[in-house]
């Protein structure tokens, strides 16, 4: 099956029972699959009037206690941004899939890119933390959708899956494991007296238990700056406290959230850093470089946000150069450069999108980086 369908199956396996979306290439197949499959498992699919409404409906459904998601591409992702901020502020778990196409604007609707990576990080206004994953194959798209739900439930925030058109439309074998083999997480839930419950009072891991509409807790949720009761408080102190809480619950759990994969890095002196479809070109390039006698390796970002600062720093200390491979003109590259902090030069293999990066293009840069080019 293709990556988009694998994503939908992953969502169902994760317990997603509500999908609100709007058709957009190259993510439409996710909506189509959910339209067919959700009613079979007791869920609800609704095609909304636009992506703003889709994101709002997803938050509403999640606040009523249902695992919920939407899927889109660049233009729709832009429209969702304000309500993604609401989800962050209301600490509402949900999954947002972006099957990236080449932008800006309408761009190349049918061709892949990885140009929305910084938008995923900072696209909604204000300061916050986000979690974003990047699948490199349909099988990984399946598993990452489950992971995304688990992370969103554990930390109570919208989690993004930053796929790309190539992975979304690529057809490969996808194994769907027996449900008993899949570990699922649910949001923390309140205990004790309902009248004393404070909906934004954090538990031990920094995450507050979540009461749903209709359970008798009589909660108030607002996008305004609020205190632990959920009541609006218009002061700098309350704002600092709230923003600290919603950023710290991620910052304090980085080791549990961040996932990277190392490939032939043990003795490498040229390290590629890549994610999504570009990491597959990078794998081929590493093998080819090794055959040519170069000590090459790859650090594949499974989670892109929060950024694996420590892994990059550690790598920068021991390699001759870092090369970021991505389908944009240098977004994650800037993060790599920041973490390298001059300890190793940071190079980029990237273009504006529309076609995958070839191993040959990467090899060329590796020769430059290793001093052989």
């Amino acid at each position, binding site marked *: 099956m293709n990556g988009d369908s694998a994503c939908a199956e992953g969502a169902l396996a994760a317990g997603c*029972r*509500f999908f*609100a979306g709007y058709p957009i290439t190259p993510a439409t197949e996710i909506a189509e699959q959910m*339209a067919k499959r959700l*009613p*079979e498992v007791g869920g*609800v*699919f*609704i095609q*909304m*009037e*636009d992506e*703003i*409404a*889709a994101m*709002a*409906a*997803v*938050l*509403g*459904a*999640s*606040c*009523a*206690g*249902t695992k*919920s998601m939407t899927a889109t591409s660049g233009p729709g992702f832009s429209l969702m941004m*304000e*309500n993604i901020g*609401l989800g962050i502020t*209301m600490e509402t778990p949900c999954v947002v899939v972006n099957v990236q196409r080449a932008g800006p604007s309408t761009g190349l609707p049918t061709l892949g890119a990885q140009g929305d990576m910084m938008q995923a990080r900072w696209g909604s206004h204000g300061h916050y933390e986000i979690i974003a994953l990047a699948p490199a194959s349909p099988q990984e798209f399946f598993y990452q959708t489950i992971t995304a739900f688990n992370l969103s439930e554990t930390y109570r925030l919208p989690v993004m899956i930053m796929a790309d058109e190539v992975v979304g439309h690529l057809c490969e074998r996808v194994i769907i494991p027996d449900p008993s083999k899949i570990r699922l997480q649910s949001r923390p839930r309140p205990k004790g007296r309902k009248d004393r419950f404070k909906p934004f009072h954090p538990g031990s891991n920094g995450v507050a238990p979540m009461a*749903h*509409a*209709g*359970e*008798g*807790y*009589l*909660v*108030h*949720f*607002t*996008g*305004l700056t609020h205190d632990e009761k959920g*009541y*609006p408080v218009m002061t700098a102190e309350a704002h600092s406290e709230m923003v600290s809480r919603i950023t710290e619950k991620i910052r304090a759990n980085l080791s549990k959230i961040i996932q990277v994969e190392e490939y032939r890095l043990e003795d490498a002196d040229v390290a590629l850093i890549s994610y999504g479809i570009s990491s597959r070109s990078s794998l081929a390039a590493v093998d080819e470089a090794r055959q040519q006698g170069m000590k090459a390796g790859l650090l594949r970002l499974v989670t892109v946000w929060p950024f694996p600062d420590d892994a990059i720093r550690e790598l920068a200390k021991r390699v001759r150069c870092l090369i970021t491979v991505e389908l944009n003109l240098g977004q994650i590259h800037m993060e790599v450069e920041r973490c390298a902090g001059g300890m190793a030069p940071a190079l980029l293999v990237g273009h504006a999108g529309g076609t995958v990066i070839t191993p040959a293009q990467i090899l060329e840069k590796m020769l430059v980086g290793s001093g052989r080019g």
Partner: protein
Amino acid sequence: MSNNRSPKHPLDNILRTDRIPHIWCPGCGIGTAFSSSLIAIQSARADLTKTVVVSGIGCSGRGAGYVKLDSYHTTHGRAIPFATGMKLANPELTLVVFSGDGDLFAIGGNHFLHAARRNMDLTVICVNNFNYGMTGGQAAATTPNMAKTSTTPLGNPELPFNLPLLAYAAGATYVARWTMLHTRDLTQSIGEALARRGFSFIEVLAPCPTGYGRRNRQKPIDSLKIYQEKTIVKNGANPAEVILDFKQGITLGKFVEYDKPTFSEAYERICRPRAS
């Protein structure tokens, strides 16, 4: 501190009294519309924990913050799609959207149309104060032609929506218009809307002395006089003929009430595979 506490207000158990005083200005009509809504909500269901109030942004949108029910104060214009998701996720809930004209009909206009078209099971109460009050009195999609606002200092060159006509044309199955002076009719209408299935829309005209009134020589008492003297109740009136003109007259009443399948009913019947 004192033994002579003020007597309990009949709506105290449905209000977040710890959030009072509210933000609404003296002479504002939202409070009265809000009270009518609370009275209707209080008697609509035995189990009030299943009633949820959702609002968008603006003065009326602050209503969700004062009601002691599950309440969600969402983004500007998006209360209806948020409530849509909530209703679909838990059909047991009664969803009330309480918001203003700018929120529901300018920035959120598209969502209103589509929720009405789907006959989504929501009760939408729109406090129409003819302008954007929260931001200081700018022109809205409901501002009368030639009215002065801070963004139409020489008069509004545009024409306003006729909200009941818009709601009816989009597919709403219950449509009424009252003023905040007609509290009994208004409360009854909200009660009827809460008791039925489908998309119900109630427009409530309300004065905004701070934003609208002071620029248009309409003191709160003048607004109330208009609501008393210029209004005609015509239940069942053709929504295309329900005028709203401070000089010529204002048609009030319950204009539309009919049944058709809600989104959820149609979804269950058509999209859900039958158990064989």
